[in-house]
């Protein structure tokens, strides 16, 4: 099998720009195309991730929508869907390919969906030029704020600054301190949160200090509640 064919089979797209530059001199033509590879599942595309709603859709919803996943993690908290697209046809006129022909350049994609302990979508990610190995669960914090008031949650080390940046990934084992800062006119009421997955996850929530301590080994969902400060009552005369 030629070098070209081997690389094409492995689904790496970037090579052909360089590889074909040499072949252009010998009559190679690259035709850009974009279609699902025969035998690959066709119901997953680049847009699929955008229709999966973290927090509201459940594992059963995902199965009903996308069908059986190609990969399921041991703890069933992660689904992987693989699809392959032909991105270019390299047409050659002979030489090292014998009689010549068209060689498809295949790009593999992986859509990963992570679920929390209540089987709701926690995180969705798409990988282009997927090399065949499932990615490790990125230890991440997903922050939400709720309540009648307003406030900000920041993290140390940096990463979370919610409401601007409400999720962040850190290295496994990192200890992150989340601090709730109520906006003017609001008070911090407290934390709620959960660790997903089956591995040890340490989550210490302290409403008194406005701090939550997370030792991150698995995705963690934390919610900070801010309520409006009660208006001072004016004594009647």
């Amino acid at each position: 099998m030629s070098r070209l064919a081997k690389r094409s089979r492995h689904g790496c797209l970037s090579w052909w720009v360089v590889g074909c530059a040499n072949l252009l001199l010998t009559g190679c033509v690259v035709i850009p195309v974009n279609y699902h590879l025969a035998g690959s599942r066709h119901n997953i595309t680049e847009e699929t991730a955008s229709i999966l709603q973290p927090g509201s859709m459940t594992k059963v919803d995902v199965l009903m929508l996308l069908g059986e996943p190609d990969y399921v993690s041991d703890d069933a908290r992660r689904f992987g869907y693989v699809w392959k697209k032909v991105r270019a046809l390299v047409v050659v006129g002979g030489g090292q390919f014998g009689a010549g022909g068209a060689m498809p350049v295949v790009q593999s994609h992986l859509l990963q969906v992570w679920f929390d302990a209540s089987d709701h979508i926690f995180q969705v990610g798409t990988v282009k030029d997927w090399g065949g190995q499932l990615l490790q669960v990125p230890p991440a914090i997903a922050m939400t704020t709720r309540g009648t008031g307003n406030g900000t949650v920041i993290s140390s080390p940096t990463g979370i600054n919610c409401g601007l940046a409400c999720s962040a990934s850190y290295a496994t084992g990192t200890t992150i301190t989340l601090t709730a800062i109520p906006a003017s006119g609001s008070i911090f009421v407290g934390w709620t949160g959960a660790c997903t997955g089956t591995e040890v996850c340490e989550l210490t929530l302290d409403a008194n200090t406005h701090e939550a301590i997370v030792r991150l080994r698995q995705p963690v969902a934390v919610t900070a509640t801010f309520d409006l400060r009660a208006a001072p009552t004016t004594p009647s005369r």
Partner: protein
Amino acid sequence: MVALVVSALAGCAATIPGARADLLTFLRAGETTREEVVLKLGPPSARFEQGRVFTYRVGRDAKQGYHVVTQNPRQPWEGVRYSMVLVFDASGVLEKQSLVAVQ
């Protein structure tokens, strides 16, 4: 002579084991049980949620109908037209189903 050749070729058309146009018509939400499904379709390609959800890989031939596709590890979706998802309730009765077109 031509008729002989044509009829001979027609006889060579591969028969898909278990293919039937009405293969899936027995599935009725609120009625069909998990046991009936396994008896008629065989073991599922995957189970989820402690067996609450079954999936089957289903092919479809224009003439012979639907058939359950045996999984090929090297080409897992080869010949698969649909991923059929069956969700059962706590008592094992079909609650809802989805025939997801994968090809």
